[in-house]
């Protein structure tokens, strides 16, 4: 095999950083979902900020399935904060790992 063919083959076999990055982000979004009181929520900064500033301890929030779910504000806020931190830390570690093994 000529040098150029070998090079083409190597490049094809090389991992594509942008694709891997996108797949990792999708997985992170999956992981950011959390079940609470029979509902399912995607934990985002907006949700955490909303819970942190809402004045009452009890409220209803719409979940992923478009159902109103009864929320204990402090309990859910704590759960969301912990979950968010854990998932985002994991994303950061795995993202660094992807950068390290980046080939093309």
């Amino acid at each position, binding site marked *: 095999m000529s040098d150029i063919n070998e090079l083409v083959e190597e490049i*094809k*076999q*090389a*991992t*594509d950083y942008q*694709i*891997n990055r996108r*797949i*990792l982000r*999708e*997985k992170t*979004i*999956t*992981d950011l*979902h*959390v*079940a609470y009181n*029979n*509902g*399912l929520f*995607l934990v985002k900064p907006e949700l955490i900020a909303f819970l942190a500033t809402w004045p009452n301890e009890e409220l209803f929030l719409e*979940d*992923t*399935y*478009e*159902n109103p779910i009864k929320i204990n504000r402090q309990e859910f806020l704590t759960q969301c904060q912990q979950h968010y931190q854990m998932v985002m830390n994991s994303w950061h570690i*795995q993202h660094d*790992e*992807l950068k390290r*093994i980046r080939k093309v």
Partner: protein
Amino acid sequence: MTNLNASVKSRGVVLFAFNTDTVNYELIADRARRLITHTLDLPVTIITEMSGSQTNTRLGYAHGTQWFNGDRYRAYELSPYDETLLLDSDYLVLDRALLKILDTTVDYNIMTDNQNFVQTMTGNMGELSLNYVWATAIAFRKTHRSKMLFDLVGRVQNNYRYYSKLYNIRRGNFRNDYAFAIADNIINGYTASPGIPWTMLTVDKTVKALEINNNNIMVREDDAAHVIPKQSLHIMDKVYLQSDAYEEFIEQICKN
């Protein structure tokens, strides 16, 4: 104090496996069972006996090969569990995300969004038709509404020529993805219900190898390789799923 009257709901996974001339689906399902047991710690029921003679042929992937895909609607009656994950045996369960669905009160939830490494694989059943779903992964609990869904899927299957005309379906052969999309649309008041709220990752090319390294999986295809996080995967390459290399991959996963 423990309430002895409290009902404990059973939870498990159901797989269908009907061998064809070219694919040993029972082997693939048994391998899927090992991954599921390891990852989800749930019991698995594998259904291997067909209710009647079925003939179907793949039109897309593995074009022209035998395909026994017709009994999926019987999952409701055949599942011994109150809460069931109904999965294709080519869906590799490598994370616990689907358990979150069972922690909610939805009657059923079907995978709708799918992508391969290059593009989205979500589409419609015909140019003037609805989007189809991916019956590869369905979560359901035994409720009246879920029973209606599965009964209706059976009805669509048994009258498929009629429904394929009614819904302007592009292809002629029966697909569970289409039957569940139609049934869901009807039951939900002629709109689609919210699907599983994340995207399935499908490898639709020939797989040369899967390798696990810490929390990453390397997917080697013929002309590319991808590093992805440890996550559930839909692998279409049945040759790979029957190979010794896949057996070794499972052993590696189950060792950790």
